[in-house]
Structures are given as structure tokens and as C-alpha cells.
């Protein structure tokens, strides 16, 4: 599956931006906790605990805030400066998740913006890289 080069129209961003971010954020956190529970996401929570994160989907105007404790990921409010913010367009996030594109490549090309604690960013990047999707139904979508 190749993800086409597309950017969501600005109107969509302004529309989505006005919707409450809590449902998608809740979905993200639930997914993360599920993946962790099933040992698909090999997260060393001691490296993440006490930190706040924000995923900013630029073209969708969506900001998803969450944080981590020693056991779980939790929904967190957006607004205060997170310890780590990852910003990119939806298509680039999708490319990164499906391993069609290397996060470093996106970063070098300024398509992925990392703000805040650089080492935390590296931890998250390495965590995503270490997920073995071959044991999940997502496998058939993966580029690698």
C-alpha cells in the first residue's frame, strides 16, 4: 500500500480543529494501552513515565495530548507545553507508522517537526521502530 502525496484541505483543518479533540485522543490512548498490554508495543514505561506528549496532525488541525505513568498512557489536556511534540501532516504520520518512510528522512526534510525533549523524541521514535507488526493484523498494510 502506497500512501499518496496529499495534504488535507485547509477547510477540513479548520473544521476538525473546532471539534473536541477528546474522542480521537481517547482512541489513541486506548490503542496504545491495548498494544502495550498485548506486548506488541514493547514500551519501557520507566523511560516515558511522568512525561507529556502531543501529536499534532497539522493538516487535520488536530492536537492529541496524552501522558504516561509507570503503567499506562492517559489522556491529557492540550495547551500547556508538552515535554515532546511531534507535528506532521496526516499522510506523513501514516507513512511513518506504516514504515513507508523513515522518520529521520521526514525530519531531515522538515516534514516532521520534533519539539521539546530531544531524547524523549528519540525514545518514542525507537519505540515505534521496535514494534513487530508481523504478529498483528496491521501486518498486511506495512511497507516493510
Amino acid at each position, binding site marked *: 500500500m502506497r500512501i499518496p502525496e496529499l495534504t488535507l484541505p485547509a477547510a477540513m483543518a479548520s473544521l476538525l480543529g473546532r471539534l473536541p479533540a477528546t474522542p480521537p485522543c481517547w482512541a489513541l490512548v486506548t490503542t496504545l494501552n491495548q498494544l502495550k498490554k498485548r506486548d506488541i508495543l514493547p514500551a519501557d514505561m520507566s523511560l516515558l513515565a511522568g512525561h507529556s506528549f502531543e501529536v499534532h496532525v497539522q493538516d487535520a488541525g488536530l492536537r492529541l495530548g496524552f501522558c504516561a505513568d509507570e503503567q499506562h498512557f492517559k489522556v491529557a489536556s492540550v495547551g500547556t507545553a508538552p515535554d515532546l511534540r511531534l507535528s506532521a501532516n496526516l499522510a506523513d504520520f501514516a507513512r511513518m507508522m506504516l514504515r513507508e518512510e*523513515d522518520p*529521520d528522512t521526514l*525530519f531531515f*526534510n522538515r516534514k516532521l517537526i520534533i519539539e521539546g525533549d530531544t*531524547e524523549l523524541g528519540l*525514545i518514542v521514535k525507537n519505540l515505534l*521502530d521496535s*514494534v513487530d507488526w508481523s504478529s498483528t493484523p496491521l501486518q498486511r498494510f506495512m*511497507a516493510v
Partner: protein
Amino acid sequence: MPATRPLPELVCPAGSLPALKAAVDNGADTVYLGLKNDTNARNFAGLNFDDRTAREGIRYAHQHERKVLLAINTYAQGGDISRWHRAIDEGAELGVDAIILADIGLMEYARRRYPALRLHMSVQSSATNYEAINLAQELFDIRRAVLPRVLTLDQVKQVIDHTRVEIEVFGFGSLCVMVEGRCLLSSYATGESPNSHGVCSPAKFVRWEHGSQALGARLNGILIDEYQQGEAAGYPTLCKGRFEVEGDTYYALEEPTSLNVMAMLPQIIDIGVAAIKVEGRQRSPAYVAQVTRTLREALDAAGREPQRFSVKPGWTQALSKLAEGQQQTLGAYNRPWK
């Protein structure tokens, strides 16, 4: 003669289990990896292998008849070096096909404890000449040496002609402009270097400053570079920053560039290089997959018809996308670069 030369092994990096599988699935002959501590030179948080993933990775590679190398390529520090000894013990116990070592004191330990274990001399040993390599061969029976990225192709040949040790060279990846194992720039700025901590310009010292005009990259407070809007950024590796010398601001040491030896593959095969290494254990499975696939294709093509070999535009395109700074060079193999 060229026709009788065996193809060099394609040695690919793995910072995680998915990266290892990506390397194997895309045609690597050999995969190299490190443990989750400062015994290896890519000691980054969240990267590398623990006992479980190492076992699973080795099983996967061996099932596909590929080899796994364990990099223990930092220098054992101070009075208590048991961590490095344990890493060697672990490698031997896991059944890796060879251990890559930088510190000659550790080579001595590995040889004494595990007489049958195959040892490689790491690029971090800074062995740039055959006398250095032959010393390690005589003392510890090392079977392969990885050459620092500073020699011309003629100099590589000179080494090969004067040693029984197999020679591995770098083929693709971020370019170290300094002799590996002989660069302390990182610890000068941060206190941590590849030799001592297994890191270069470590992320915990990096700060990105998102200004209104430019993106600033600082390492422990030291401004390594600034990028204007739309300008491609680079990780603030010290040697790849822009600095001012006598009024000129430029990449005073090296541009953010990747090494790519594809154009030289027939010559590399011809002089008898035993293995070609891809840099990048810190990179993602996507990178490993794309680089491995491309180099596999190129290497096979060069092996089939060395006389008619030419670099296909598709290969260049695939690799340049992944290259740091999106520029590629033949590096020191090509004299003018020096």
C-alpha cells in the same frame, strides 16, 4: 580474475527486531546489532536488543541462513569492566556468528575465554594500516577488520594485499569525516563520546530552538547550526555543523552527507573486499529495508556483469531519499574528496 571473486557479504544494521527482519527479508547476508547498554557505539535510549529480542533475531536470521554479528565496540572504561565481559559472554552464549570488538584488551579476553569464537576488529579500533590489523591477527586471531572511512580505494587494496584478515568497508550511510575511534569532539562538547559512552552528539544534550526566522540546533548549549525556513535540517552532529572561520560561515568540517559507494562496486569486488557494511543501527526499519533492497540489487548486478555495470537511476533515487542531507559522496575512496 574479476569473475572468480566471490561477492562481498552485505552487512546491514539492526537497532530493533523489526529492522533485523527487514534486513533479512530484503537480502542482507549478515546483520549486526548491539545490546541495550554502553558496550556498543549506538547506545541510544530505546534502541538495541535485550536477551529476548536478540534470541528471536538470531533465530530468525539463522532460519534464513544469514549471519548475526554482535557489536561490542566501545572501549571498556575504568576499573570495573565486567559489563563488557558480560556482553562478550552473552554473545558467545547466544550463538552469534562473530563479535565485533574495538578494545584490544577485550579481544584478549574473548580469545582466552572462547577460543572458537570468531572475532572481528571494529572500525572503532582505528586500524587504518595492515600492520595494526596483523598485530590483532597474530595476538587474537581476528578474522575480519572493518576499515575506517578514511582510506582511498588504492589504500584499501594495499591493506588487502598485505593481510590474511578479511576486509570490510563501509558502503552506505552517514559519513564519519573523522577516523572512527579517534574523535573526541562529542565529549569535548558534552562529556560523552563514542569511545567512552557509545554516543556521538547525544540526544539528551540536543535542543531545537524554533525561532520565528530560523531553527537553531544546540548541543549542550553550543550552537551547531541554524536552518532557515524550508532549508533541509540535519541532526546536530558536531562535525556537520556550520561554523565561522576567519569571517566565513560554512560547513567548516563536513557537509551533512551520506557515503554511497554504489558507483564503485565493481572495483570494490575486484580488489577483494570481503564485506560491505551499511551504517545506521539508529535508523528505522524502513531505512534498513530500502537500503538493503537497493544495495542487494546493485551488488548482484555488479557481480553478474562487472564490465557492464552502471548505477541505475532508480537505485540512486531510492538511496538519496534516505541520505542525510540528501547529498551523496564516494568519500575517501575517491581521492578528490580528501
